[in-house]
């Protein structure tokens, strides 16, 4: 119990920090002179902040050092509480919205899934749209990482929190001696690239609101859009190209971007083990799928096929989830291949989802090792990635992760099947949720959205998103008896 109170103390502080993020939609409401929306947001902000302060004050006697266990508890606590508080403005501004749908929407935003239950996005108040996209952006690099960066009082526990929230199997490579410095640098790089994206999109013809919103969702690899037709609304190759570039940047490790900026050289990217395979797989798939679509006669020219295949494939593979055409109409091979890529191509330490390229590499190399082991029983054959030996402990933890990942997909798919969904919809809905991608196929395809789901199905997808974002272990560890044992 004491442990929980210590965590609630820190959680209160984080909620106060989170309430600061309402400033952006508040400013938007002011600019658009939308008084009622402004008041709704102000109310939400005050509620969040005062509850945070209350939690902080009531548990002040339990203030303590955050251990590893506190870290997991705090991260999961924050990732369930944050979407709950973030629903406040949605519920206040959109009276017809149920809490289930609102929670799905904010969870989808914060986990950078980008699936939506709202229709008529084009007519939503500007502040609400901005709020959704801001959630995408905050969730991308991680709100806890942000907290570690700006709240020095999290102290030594910060490293534990950082590890619990950052995706990827190898999290010990600190860029700077102090974890807060590392977190701050990562956020600065993130912020910098986001501004570049914003300016490029404005130049490409978006209005300021759309440019800001889309740069947020592109860098977070969330995939929210301000239009029901998503990026297809603009029908502009230029915008699609810019988004492709920034999605590819966001799918790389931000630590690599940081080091490249610090060293002012591209060679850093070459030594990153994930960048090359990611780019090769994505570019190869673009060319191949475009050829396949052209060959199948979906598009009249190869270049048109390449344009649509590239944008939608990069969008799905990087786990953003924008759509420029209804790719669910393509022969099933293409969209399923795209869904498969979602699970694999994102780098560790990026804003993407799925099992991450580094784990894919570990798995592929492990398979190769088994072959060597059969041919040369005496061989010493450690796994090496980028010239560095990867210890067997990491290999085992990756294998454990993969097992849980597939078990989670299978179990949740079955649950959706029981609830009455068809197989393709159920499978792709879970796949898209757990990989934080967004649109699936069938009833949750790019042309429709998750609005048609029952409340139960919506909650299952919400759970899948959280599982995927916290990389399963962080969430499930709370349900092990050992965690609560002293």
């Amino acid at each position, binding site marked *: 119990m004491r442990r929980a109170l210590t965590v609630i103390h820190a959680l209160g502080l984080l909620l106060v920090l989170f309430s600061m993020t309402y400033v952006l939609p508040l400013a938007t409401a002011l600019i658009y002179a939308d008084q009622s929306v402004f008041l709704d947001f102000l109310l939400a902000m005050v509620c969040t902040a005062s509850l945070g302060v209350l939690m902080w004050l009531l548990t002040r006697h339990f203030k303590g050092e955050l251990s590893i266990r506190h870290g997991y508890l705090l991260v999961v606590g924050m990732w369930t509480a944050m979407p709950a508080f973030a629903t406040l403005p949605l519920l206040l501004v959109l009276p017809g919205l149920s809490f289930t749908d609102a929670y799905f929407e904010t969870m989808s935003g914060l986990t950078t899934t980008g699936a939506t239950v709202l229709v008529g996005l084009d007519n939503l108040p500007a502040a609400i749209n901005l709020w959704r996209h801001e959630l995408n952006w905050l969730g991308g690099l991680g709100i806890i990482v942000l907290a570690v960066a700006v709240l020095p009082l999290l102290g030594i526990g910060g490293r534990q929190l950082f590890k619990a929230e950052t995706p990827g199997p190898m999290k010990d490579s600190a860029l700077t001696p102090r974890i807060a410095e590392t977190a701050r640098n990562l956020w600065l790089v993130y912020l910098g690239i986001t501004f570049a994206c914003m300016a490029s999109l404005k130049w490409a013809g978006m209005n300021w609101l759309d440019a800001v919103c889309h740069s947020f969702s592109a860098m977070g690899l969330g995939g929210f859009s301000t239009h029901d037709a998503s990026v297809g609304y603009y029908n502009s190759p230029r915008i699609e190209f810019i988004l492709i570039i920034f999605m590819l940047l966001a799918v790389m490790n931000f630590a690599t971007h940081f080091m490249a900026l610090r060293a002012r050289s591209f060679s850093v990217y070459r030594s990153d083990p994930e960048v090359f395979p990611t780019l090769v797989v994505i570019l190869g798939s673009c060319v191949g799928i475009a050829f396949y679509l052209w060959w199948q006669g979906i598009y009249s020219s190869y270049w048109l096929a390449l344009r649509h295949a590239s944008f939608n494939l990069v969008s799905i593979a990087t786990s953003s989830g924008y759509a420029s055409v209804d790719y669910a109409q393509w022969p099933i091979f293409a969209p399923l291949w795209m869904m498969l890529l979602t699970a694999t191509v994102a780098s560790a330490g990026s804003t993407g989802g799925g099992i991450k390229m580094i784990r894919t590499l570990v798995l592929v190399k492990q398979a190769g090792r088994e072959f060597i082991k059969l041919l040369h029983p005496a061989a*010493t054959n450690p796994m090496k990635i980028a010239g560095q*030996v990867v210890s067997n402990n990491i290999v085992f933890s990756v294998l454990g992760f993969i097992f849980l990942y597939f078990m989670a997909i299978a179990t949740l798919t079955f649950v959706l099947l029981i609830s009455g969904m068809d197989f393709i919809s159920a499978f792709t809905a879970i796949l898209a949720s757990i990989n934080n991608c967004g649109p699936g196929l069938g009833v949750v395809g790019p042309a429709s959205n998750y609005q048609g789901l029952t409340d139960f199905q919506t909650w299952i997808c919400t759970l899948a998103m959280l599982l995927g974002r916290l990389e399963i272990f962080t969430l499930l560890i709370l349900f092990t008896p050992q965690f609560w044992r002293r």
Partner: protein
Amino acid sequence: MKILILGAGQVGSTVAESLVSEANDITVVDADAAKLRLLQDRLDLRTLAGNASHPSVLEQAGIADTDMLLAVTQSDEVNLVACKLAASLYNTPTRIARIRASDFLEREEIFNKDNFCVDFSICPEQILTDYIVKLIEFPEALQVLEFADGKASLVAVRAFEGGPLVGKQLNFLRTHMPQVETRVAAIFRKDRPIIPQGDTVVEEGDEIFFIAATANIRSVLQEMRRMDRPTKRVMIVGGGNIGRRLAQALEHDYHVKLIEFNRKACEKLAGELTNTLILNGDGTDEKLMQQEHVEDIDVFCALTNDDENNIMSALLAKQGGARKVISLINRSAYVGLVQGGKIDIALSPAQVTIGSLLAYVRQGDVAVVHSLRRGAAEALELIAHGDRKSSQVVGRRIEEVALPTGATIGAIVRGDEVIMGHRDTLIQADDHIIVFVINKAIVRKVEKLFRVNLGFF
């Protein structure tokens, strides 16, 4: 000359042995008194037990009037510090250090006189590795020694049936391959040297030393014996300093398998090597060899620290069907015992590496010294200085140079050109002259011949 040697390990004691016989005053310092006692029992030198990097120890060893410091302990750091101390405290004229770590070797400024004051650095493991790499590149050769930065090479090869030259006079070479310049420097028949003349007949089993431009080695080799297929698969036993370096040097051009006994060492090797198959096991385990298809191995190298193990595993490999087996053997008694039998090449690390040290120790302008036939013979690269008046070689034809019997001028390297030593070739100043000396006893005389008279200065 007064020489101070730090470290009585393998390198230290071999150098000491070799230098004692050349009438030098030698002092050896090592931390291990037992090693020193062994050395002193055998050789006429002074020893001192102590830490070789401490000034008090160095002073006791008489560094103040030492002409040359050879810091060849196991530790790079001790060697560097000793050189620095010798330079800044005692003004020792020449300082040579053994440096193994490539981290140091990559930064040359570490050795200059503002830093560690090392005149020459040597890395015996690297010299040995380069030597083995050459043998793997030319699997037919017994020895490949480079002169003049690799422009010319001295190659030892055993004449075998199938070589066009076998059973013919040496003159036949020139008519058979008029376009390739080469010169046979010496022939050893049943371990006895023969001074080669134009009418000497090459017999099967002869060990022939010839000099040629490095690019021509292969075509000359073809004259002496049937050529093997080029080397593709290499197996190394022992992942120590030499095994690791060799694997590193070979792994991108050949299929390399490395057997190492120690599991921890295996893991470390596997981390450092990218293309080598690391096998954890015993180098004398014939089952492991079978499992790893020793019969397909072109060159098998036994490179552990243990002579007996190396010999046994090389014998096993040969019996298992490896085409050419090389064994590293430290004890010189074993080398003679083994070479020429089932084991194709018995490598004595001391003999291979001593040459590079000797080149620094010798007076005159000796650029390279290669020790041959277990130290009995030597090949030297000498630089001719001065003019017809001050020098006994410059401005003279080869037949005019008063070389002692047993020494032959094999070739002359002038700039980038490799000229074979014919009777009427004129020697010019700054020529690099490769001299083959059958008997080590006359090396001094040869060196003296090349010294410039005082009038030159």
